[in-house]
């Protein structure tokens, strides 16, 4: 038991050290990129060409295979950022702050992608680009919160300070996002009866569900890939004056 615990502890410490992370990620990067692009490709291809056509919406519904995973990712990445923020606040692990910073633009992009694809999907099916529906509104607010985090990080010169400031804000964010969701729900029911419900298909046919599931897994892996690439850049950028980076690129040490 003690041995396993020690192993886990060592693994965490190794993960948290920038040079070791860099070495370790170089090894898994090729595998990660092959697997993620393969799964994403299979999922999207299946969804776009093999999944049956929806009897009501026609082929338009196929945007779902991009829209739903990116909406899920937008929320999951925020959760991930808040966890990084906690770790960064409590243990001051260097890498967690860098992770937080590298994940933010990816999360914001996925949220924006979900908003844009949702809007494109809404035009033919609902007849309008935008509806003040509870889900749309809370996704938009999530995007604003991402923007606030990125904006805060970019204004603080000292990177580790910026990481910690963003950690604090991401913790506030994770506490308040459920409240925002609930309050938007109530607001919506007070102001207008729900004209549209996005999730009106409780039983999705398995032919559509299976490719969607693969797409979601593919998006998660794709996020892992993007995060690793971003994080490696961030590590090099911040540690550019350290010996190990100089040695890595054959500079003078």
């Amino acid at each position: 038991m003690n041995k396993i615990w020690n192993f886990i502890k060592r693994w965490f410490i190794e993960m948290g050290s920038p040079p070791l992370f860099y070495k370790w990620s170089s090894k898994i990067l090729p595998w990660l990129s092959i697997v993620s692009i393969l799964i994403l490709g299979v999922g999207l291809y299946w969804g776009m060409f093999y999944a049956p056509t929806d009897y009501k919406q026609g082929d338009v519904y196929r945007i779902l295979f991009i829209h739903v995973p990116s909406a899920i990712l937008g929320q999951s990445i925020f959760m991930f950022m808040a966890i990084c923020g906690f770790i960064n606040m409590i243990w001051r692990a260097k890498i967690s702050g860098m992770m937080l910073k590298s994940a933010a633009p990816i999360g914001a992009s996925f949220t924006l992608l979900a908003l844009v694809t949702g809007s494109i999907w809404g035009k033919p099916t609902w007849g309008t680009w935008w509806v003040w529906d509870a889900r749309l509104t809370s996704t938009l607010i999530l995007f604003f919160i991402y923007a606030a985090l990125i904006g805060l990080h970019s204004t603080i010169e000292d990177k580790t300070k910026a990481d910690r400031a963003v950690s604090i804000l991401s913790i506030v964010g994770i506490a308040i996002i459920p409240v925002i969701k609930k309050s938007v729900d109530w607001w919506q029911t007070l102001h207008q009866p729900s004209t549209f419900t996005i999730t009106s298909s409780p039983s999705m046919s398995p032919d559509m569900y299976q490719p969607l599931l693969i797409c979601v897994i593919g998006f998660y892996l794709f996020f892992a890939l993007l995060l690793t690439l971003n994080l490696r850049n961030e590590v090099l950028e911040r540690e550019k004056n350290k010996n190990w980076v100089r040695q890595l690129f054959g500079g003078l040490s």
Partner: protein
Amino acid sequence: MMQSSISDWLTIILRRDLIIAFRRSSTYITPLIFFLIVVTFFPLALGPQESLLSSLAPGVIWIAALLASLLAVETIFSEDFRDGTLDDFFISLEPSFILVFAKVLIHWLITGLPILIASMIAALVLYLPFESFIPMIFSLLLGTSFMSLLGALGAALSLGRSAILSAIIVLPFSIPTLLMGTSVISSSLINQDFSGYLMIMGAMLAIGIPGLCLLTVEALLLNYE
């Protein structure tokens, strides 16, 4: 002994900051005037029809209140940070939580309270029915207090940086307050029960006082490393 020293500490900071605030009248006049100007703009932009204005009044009053309480956010810590008083506070062995709490209280007293009083004038000129006055005041009381807490965090995070940054940080997080606050007033307009919204706002305040004050302390300490 410990109890009395903490309350002494609180009264010392409150007295000092209140004296400073009252010697410079602009600190509490500016948010008030700003609030009234924003409220005035809505009838000018949308037209003076009574039915339109009274239905828009909850939203107008709340948006104006949010913006006005953000206006003075920058002053919460910046003055003390610049002249080194904040350093002294942190060097003293008194709990910094109390310091932040006192600062939030001061901010509420110089922005929230004047807005609360001015909101009655705003409600009059926007033709809000008298029955909705009490819900409006309660919602503003809870909402502006929560805004002061959030504003303190925003001010601490953007200390020494642009004032617009703290607004961008704080505004997305103030959305539940805005929604609940306007819901309280609009529910009272259509004779619906609004106590639920007030309870949620109260709960947010109850969690916010310890939670946000502690995080604000952390954010302030970032400047002293």
